[in-house]
């Protein structure tokens, strides 16, 4: 059985006669000047990477009648013309089943030329709806230089702890993200900027004497440790070094939970608003267990 084609419109369907066929079953092509929009960018740009782009579904066939009934031929041509203008999808029926070309938004008046035998050659173009923007991943990944964890034992005194930079040195121009989980008070963060936005050294959250902090530290010149003045403190420092101190942070989220059993999952959920390098730190305090 040859393919049969049906033009679907909001006001009814029109079955094309058996002479109609498609130029290609996969409309569109590879367009080296395709427009795309990068993640986090508003402007479109041209791409030469051969993204597949939409194009018209082209059907062609002949409208003719053995009885040369001109009125019937004109009626059929008019039906096709009206259906093409309002066409929203096309159904292709074969012996194997049907395939629907959806998301169409009509097309121009069909091209009609005489076939020299009293009939008419008809070419139909059906165009897709406006394409959605294509996003590609950012080409500027955040470069991770080093990451590490260290523990500071308890001291009831006020003191300065020097959080070692993992890998030895954070180079000038890099950015350090410092997460602290523990107990006590941070009294001076020097160059650390609190990510809680409070403009002081308060923690993000506290529960049962335990607290979590998050800071960003732009590195102006090479450093091997970060000083923090603390009081009655013990805790764990999570230190991550990334290239580029101009980097910003986004999607800060945290949870501090109470008593949990072994194997209990703790964490956050949500959707990333921006691309980048996601840093994940975890901490646990387990008094009297072990």
């Amino acid at each position, binding site marked *: 059985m040859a393919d049969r084609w049906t033009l679907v419109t909001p006001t009814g369907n029109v079955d094309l006669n058996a002479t109609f066929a498609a130029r290609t079953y996969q409309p569109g092509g590879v367009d080296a000047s395709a427009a795309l929009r990068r*993640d986090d960018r508003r402007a479109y740009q041209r791409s030469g990477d051969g993204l597949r782009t939409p194009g018209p579904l082209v059907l062609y066939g002949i409208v003719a009648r053995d009885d040369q009934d001109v009125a019937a031929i004109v009626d059929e041509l008019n039906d096709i013309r009206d259906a093409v203008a309002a066409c929203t999808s096309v159904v292709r029926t074969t012996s194997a089943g049907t395939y629907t070309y959806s998301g169409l938004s009509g097309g121009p008046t069909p091209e009609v030329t005489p076939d020299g035998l009293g009939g008419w050659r008809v070419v139909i173009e059906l165009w897709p709806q406006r394409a959605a923007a294509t996003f590609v*991943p*950012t080409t500027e*990944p955040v470069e991770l230089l080093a*990451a*590490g*964890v*260290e*523990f500071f034992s308890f001291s009831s005194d006020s003191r300065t702890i020097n959080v070692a930079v*993992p890998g030895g040195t954070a180079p000038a121009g890099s950015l350090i*993200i410092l*997460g602290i*989980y523990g107990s006590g008070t941070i009294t001076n963060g020097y160059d650390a900027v609190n*990510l809680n936005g409070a403009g002081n050294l308060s923690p993000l*959250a506290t529960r*049962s004497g335990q607290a979590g902090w*998050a800071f960003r530290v732009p590195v102006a010149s090479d450093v091997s440790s970060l000083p923090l003045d603390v009081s009655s403190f*013990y805790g764990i420092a*999570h*230190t*991550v070094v990334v290239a580029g101190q*101009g*980097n*910003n*942070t*986004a999607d*800060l989220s*945290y*949870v*501090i939970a*109470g*008593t*949990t*059993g*072994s*194997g*209990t*999952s*703790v*964490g*956050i*959920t*949500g*959707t*990333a608003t*921006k*691309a*980048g*390098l*996601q*840093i*994940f*730190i*975890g*901490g*646990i*305090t*387990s008094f*009297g267990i*072990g």
Partner: protein
Amino acid sequence: MFTIDQEDFILHDTFWGLGPFGGDAGFVATRPISAGADLDASWRATQGGNVVFALVVTVTPS
């Protein structure tokens, strides 16, 4: 020890200080993330905890 529920995180370092008198433990992990992707980050420890903390923050390109 630690188990991060999302397999695409890379675990970089851990401290595990649990002992007979209790203790503390922590880890740091990272992964690249795209805008619109799931931000979900959760973990579990083989040890129960009195307090458990989880924090994520995304460093975005300048």
